[in-house]
């Protein structure tokens, strides 16, 4: 029997605010324990929550980036449960009336668009942090994180494989980190946390199977690994005629497997009710409109346009669209130019410039490394044959190293221009042939694959500056003569 996998993902994303959701304590990560706290986030008697407008604005942006409908009126509720890192004994969240619903995230793979429906996006406050291994028999609690603003984003069960789940998370991170710019989406620091639920069913079946929820997924690759394990586990059970339990499981990275949460399931009854300390959250149509305009193109729209407008491959378009700043830079260089220009620009961006950006972590967009004008001139010189691919790379290296900003001057100063002068080229050909009499003899005897050897030697002798087309012609001529 063949099986279909059905996956839904729930993600919590910390919003990039200066302060917490309901008080004005710093939401910065990494402060000494229990120092970013006040009466509100400590849950002191008499303290009251006041919503952070900055968090509301970011949540609206996030919702729009996911194609959601943002509701004019949404409602905060209390989710009641006891836990040491939950200072008030309830979490302020949204339930029946979330900020936004019915979105779509569009992914692209092998020329096809895959759409994942977003069920809801809502605003809530984070809990503090419990540390169980610090003191034997005790739990230590740090409330710095308590009250930090989160959005929870829940998909419909639209994903069909662990790889697709991973691709969704990458797309979500790209959207939230770079397009909506609402979070740094750092999984190590916990600013993006993912839980997944998975079920399997016989291919063709329309009813959903019993799902398990997998938690403790601290990287995209672990999400994929855990889901692969979970899929195989469930299929194995069903094939043995066993039933899959509806349960929560933790992923154990070292063992590479998921395990049920230990102990008896608690009697969960969250007793949701409208938060009486807050009035309903109202978002005007005008606010949503303004936010939508500020957001601009979404990744899949950008990718499609780059492919159409510049005849770029899906691969190139996807890489260029990773961040809106990169695409904007690309267009500042290649806008209005022909497709060859665009392709060459893309090559520079994906090659030397991307490598340099990787070398400077945390730093800089393309714009900070090299001005678009400068790159445009480099592309021109490459395309008109002044620079070979080799010398163009050298020139780019010099520009990125800060050796100068005037491309023409740099090319001149370092003698990078291609040599097209026939006498000079002929001199190099002579030099190479004289230096390799044995190879010349073997070539003359019919070993034609040695042509490449001579070309390589020629380019080395010429320091990469020989115009490859002209020098090839000359070499063909001379070798033919040698054969006769």
């Amino acid at each position, binding site marked *: 029997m063949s099986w279909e996998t059905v996956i839904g993902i729930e993600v919590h994303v910390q919003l990039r605010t200066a302060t917490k959701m309901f008080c004005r304590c710093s939401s910065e990560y990494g402060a000494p324990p229990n120092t970013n706290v006040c009466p509100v986030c400590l849950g002191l008697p008499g303290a009251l929550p006041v919503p952070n407008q900055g968090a509301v604005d970011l949540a609206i942006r996030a919702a729009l980036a996911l194609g959601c409908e943002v509701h004019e009126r949404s409602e905060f509720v209390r989710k009641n449960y006891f836990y040491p890192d939950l200072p008030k004994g309830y979490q302020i969240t949204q339930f029946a009336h979330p900020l936004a619903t019915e979105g779509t995230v569009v992914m692209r793979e092998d020329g096809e668009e895959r759409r994942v429906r977003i069920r809801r996006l809502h605003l809530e406050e984070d809990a503090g942090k419990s540390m169980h291994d610090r003191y034997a028999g005790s739990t230590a609690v740090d409330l710095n994180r308590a009250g930090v603003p989160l959005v929870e984003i829940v998909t419909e069960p639209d994903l069909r494989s662990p790889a697709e789940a991973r691709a969704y998370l990458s797309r979500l991170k790209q959207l939230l980190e770079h397009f909506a710019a609402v979070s740094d989406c750092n999984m190590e620091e916990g600013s993006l946390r993912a839980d997944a639920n998975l079920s399997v069913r016989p291919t063709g079946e329309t009813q959903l199977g019993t799902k398990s929820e997998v938690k403790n997924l601290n990287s995209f690759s672990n999400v994929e690994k855990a889901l692969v394990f979970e899929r195989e586990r469930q299929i194995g059970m069903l094939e043995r005629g066993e039933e899959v339990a509806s349960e929560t499981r933790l992923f154990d990275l070292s063992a590479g497997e998921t395990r049920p949460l230990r102990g008896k399931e608690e009697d969960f009854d969250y007793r949701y009710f409208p938060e009486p300390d*807050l009035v309903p959250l109202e978002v005007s149509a005008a606010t949503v409109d303004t936010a939508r305009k500020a957001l601009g193109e979404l990744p899949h729209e950008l990718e499609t346009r780059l492919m159409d407008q510049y005849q770029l491959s899906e691969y190139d378009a996807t890489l260029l669209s990773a961040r809106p700043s990169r695409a904007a830079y690309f267009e500042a260089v290649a806008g209005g130019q022909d497709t060859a220009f665009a392709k060459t620009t893309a090559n520079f961006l994906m090659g030397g410039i991307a490598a340099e950006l990787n070398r400077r972590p945390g730093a800089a967009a393309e714009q900070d490394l090299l001005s678009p004008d400068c790159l445009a001139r480099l592309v021109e010189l490459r395309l008109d044959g002044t620079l070979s691919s080799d010398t163009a790379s050298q020139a780019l290296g010099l520009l990125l190293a800060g050796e100068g900003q005037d491309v023409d001057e740099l090319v001149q100063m370092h003698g990078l221009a291609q040599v097209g002068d026939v006498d000079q080229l002929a001199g190099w050909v002579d030099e190479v042939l004289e230096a390799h009499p044995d190879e010349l003899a073997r070539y003359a005897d019919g070993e034609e694959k040695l042509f490449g050897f001579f070309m390589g030697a020629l380019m080395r002798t010429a320091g990469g500056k020989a115009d490859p087309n002209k020098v090839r012609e000359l070499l063909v001529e001379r070798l033919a003569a040698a054969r006769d």
Partner: protein
Amino acid sequence: MNPLRTLTAARAVLGRGEASPDELLDLAETRNQELNAGPEPLNAFLSTVGSQTGAPKVGEGAGGAGGGDSARGLLAGVPVAVKDNICTTRFPTTCGSRILADFRSPYDATAVRRLEAAGARVFGKTNLDEFAMGSSTENSGFGAVRNPVDRDRVPGGSSGGSAAAVAAGVVPVALGSSTGGSVRQPASFCGVVGVKPTYGRVSRYGLVAFASSLDVIGILSRNVADAATVLEVIAGHDRYDATCQDRPVPRAAAASEMDLPGVTLGVPEEYLGLGLDSRVRGLFESTLEEVTRAGATVRKISLPSTPAAIPCYYVIAPAEASSNLARYDGARYGYRAPATDRLLDMYERSRGEGFGQEVKRRIMLGTYVLSAGYYEAYYLRAHEVRLAIARDLDSVFAAGVDAIFTPTSPTPAFRLGEKLADPYEMYLADVYTVSANLAGIPAVSIPIGNLEGLPVGGQLMCPHWEEERLLGIAGRIEDVIEYAHPLDDAEEGAGAGVDREES
């Protein structure tokens, strides 16, 4: 005359230099000690300046400069009392609960900051029903408060300590809090004025939450003008309370400009049933005659949803309370049961030992009505009933009634212990007052007379944000009635006021 009886008296003494602010605090201390001496102590205060050895001098370097500039100095040098469910940094804030017996708030409530910014000196924190849950102040974890008028009787509640302190002349004004009647009902029992402002008028920041959608800080005083002055000081926008509205603060001066002729008072027929003591009814009706003679128009009205108010309140308030009191779990502050090595034990024992019976009763009830399967039947339905009650009140005001006038409580002060065995009987003491909390409208109780030496109050209710009208009408009725407080008679030895007994 006791300079601590009214603001006017205290200001006069201070103004003439007959006493310094410190001496007034000392006088309050002396009076409080006298009232606590003997076999039947008043027990109105849980802490006072005198009990706070080593604490910074009260009233100096007041925390925060909140409050409107116009309010500055209105209470200069005057001792005030604050109900002990309102946070203060210089006194413990216990809420009358063992679970917070040793708790000192690291911040001051907005209302307290504003009192201090206006020059007031907080003399002490008043006793209350635990977490303001009760109508007799017998539910305090630190002993019941006695009614200063009759020590065998309750002062009402839950702001019983504040009402008793004002009635007994320890301080001229005190802050209380009202969730269902906790300012007006004790005011009525102790023969003082009790104001419950519009929900959203006074910041709740620092008022320890009982039922957040109903709670409001209120004022107890000897006369309407003093309450109006304190309201002007504490009212107004606060960035720490998202439900506190940015509206012009009601001015005490405006409240004194009102006149009774032209005023229409609505008297709901439903309020004259509902277990109303016939003698209270008689006293209330003779008051109606007096205000009619003074020019007011009295009109019978109907508020058909009235019988639903108490049942509705006892679903909504416990529901919110069950959530609001979850934070008292022994983890970060307050009482932690000793020798608990499991988390669940720590939770259950700290809360089981720290909370008193009434609080547990309401937490249980609230947890039940919010739990899965019951939420719609109880909480959601109660919410609809609440809207119906608010709508009934709105339509009465829309039909030309300026204020609704009712008795404050069905009976005068009952005896200590009389209603402890029957919680629901106790709940009915708030039958006339809960509607204003459910609707969020402002209301006041003023003394309308005494029955066999026990004070009786009348309640006025006005539409949202109409405190100036409310206190204006209350002030004129107060003028008409010329109420004589039983303790003033005793103190001054002369039956200056006519005892308005109904025989």
